């Protein structure tokens, strides 16, 4: 990707983005509270699991828990990426930012990586915490079902490409929308159908396996590539600074 030919300027943009996120209350809340919620919900779900009263059995309960983890790399980037361009425009920094020696691809890459990196790391971290809790306190049959290797395999494969998908979609809307909330809502509309394959797996409509996770990840990665190309083509500096 040409974005990395002048890596230092992209790295500079990433560092700036991360510094800004640390001082932006809404983003900070989104990036800290949501992962905690996405961690506590599955733990509560499994802790309260009652095999006698459960309709779908332990597999469905574990699937529901996993769904929360898959939501994490989708929802957090959607909020952050909506801010990426509109936020710059709202605080008046977009115009000087676009006078920096950053090509369109470097600009977008810096913005995208600043979201995908931390979000993926947070998603892996809460999943790791969940697995630790399961190992430490969960009883059979929950323990075996939750520790089934296909889940971490699928999560490891799919979480980064889902985060990228969510970020790119959010960025595309952010570059063209006038309001952060509009961008969030529009990207939400696109992201919900994208969660359908995950729904099919967590509900065991499709069995979690190397093949199913591999296929889904490949499809999402292909979509990511297509959206990246589209976003790059659609990114218009004049429009970005004039949409107000």
């Amino acid at each position, binding site marked *: 990707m040409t974005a990395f030919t*002048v890596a*230092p*300027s992209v*790295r*500079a*943009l990433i*560092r*700036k983005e991360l*510094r*800004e996120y640390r*001082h*932006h209350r809404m983003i900070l809340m989104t990036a800290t509270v949501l992962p905690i919620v996405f961690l506590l919900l599955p733990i509560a779900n499994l802790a309260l699991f009652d095999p006698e009263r459960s309709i779908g059995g332990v597999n469905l309960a574990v699937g529901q828990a996993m769904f929360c983890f898959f939501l994490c790399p989708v929802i957090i980037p959607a909020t952050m990426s909506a801010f990426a361009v509109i936020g710059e425009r709202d*605080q*008046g*920094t977009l*115009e*000087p930012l*676009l*006078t*920096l*020696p*950053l*090509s369109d691809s470097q600009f977008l890459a810096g913005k995208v990586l600043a979201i995908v990196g931390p979000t993926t790391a947070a998603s892996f971290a809460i999943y790791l915490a969940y697995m630790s809790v399961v190992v430490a306190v969960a009883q059979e049959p929950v323990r075996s079902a939750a520790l089934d290797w296909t889940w971490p395999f699928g999560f490891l494969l799919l979480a980064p490409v889902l985060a990228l998908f969510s970020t790119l979609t959010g960025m595309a809307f952010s570059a063209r929308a006038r309001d952060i909330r509009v961008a969030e809502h529009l990207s939400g509309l696109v992201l919900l159908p994208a969660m359908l394959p995950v729904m099919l797996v967590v509900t065991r409509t499709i069995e979690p396996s190397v093949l199913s996770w591999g296929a889904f990840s490949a499809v999402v990665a292909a979509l990511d590539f297509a959206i990246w190309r589209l976003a790059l083509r659609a990114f218009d*500096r*004049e429009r970005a*600074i004039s949409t107000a």
Partner: protein
Amino acid sequence: MTHAGPAIELDRAGRTFGDRVALRPLDLAIPPGEIFGLLGPNGSGKTTTLRILATLIRPTTGTARILGHDVVTAAMDVRRRVGVMPEKPSLYERLTVRDNLVFWADAHTLPDTRAAIASALAFVGLEARADDRVGQLSKGWRQRVALARAIVHRPRVLLLDEPSSGLDPSAAAAMERMIRALVADGATVLMNTHRLAEAERICDRVAILRHGELLELGTPRQLRARLLGNVVNVELAGPPTLPVRRAVEATPAISDVRWLPGGFACRLEDADRDTPALIAGLVHAEAQIVSVVQAGDLESAYLELMARTAREDELEAAA
């Protein structure tokens, strides 16, 4: 590598937005080391010109070059060589002054970021506020940060949009001093301004735009002469004596002499060319000269031009 031609060059560069003409094809060549002012009412095309040069928008006609680099085909080369200061400071207010500059210096991949930032902070006198959040600073200090950001990579060309907009007189004077110092250091400055007195003080040349069209171009003195006539006011210590009157009337290219109790006003064919001869004649006649001042200022000239073009527009509309 040093560029031999103009630092800033517009060759029939124009811009339309749909049916609206923001800038009619404009020719402009600004040599290195010049402070050039773009004047004109709101919507006259000043900001459009600046945005074209800053690679933010593309010209729809003609070309524009910075230090020989085309703003469309070599946009990245242009961005490396210009410093842009927008009208509003447009800073990251949640970040500190230093963090703002660190980002800019890093994005320009400077070899010694720390030294560049220290130098920019020292230049604008912000060392003591470097670790303050920008959001806590006054407008004047923010303008200084914006200037520090624009110069942190030591650009050879500076594009300043209303650099002293909203500043109190002492902050505006400080901004003027800083702009002069940058030019003394070898930079070329193109600035938009509504402050005509400021433009008259610091700009080597100015262009007046209206409705996207170039109306006048020249030094402030040339514009005053063209628009207000070459009227010169001479103040003497005491009433004009007969030898003084004779010397004045004998000056070539003089007309419309009006004698006053403490001096006289006259019209010269070319104030720049003829004033030295007038003064030489006065000195020869042993006149005690207090001051010789060309009548009017850039502001009067600007207002005269605006009134004149408004009258022409009315006549055109009536016809």
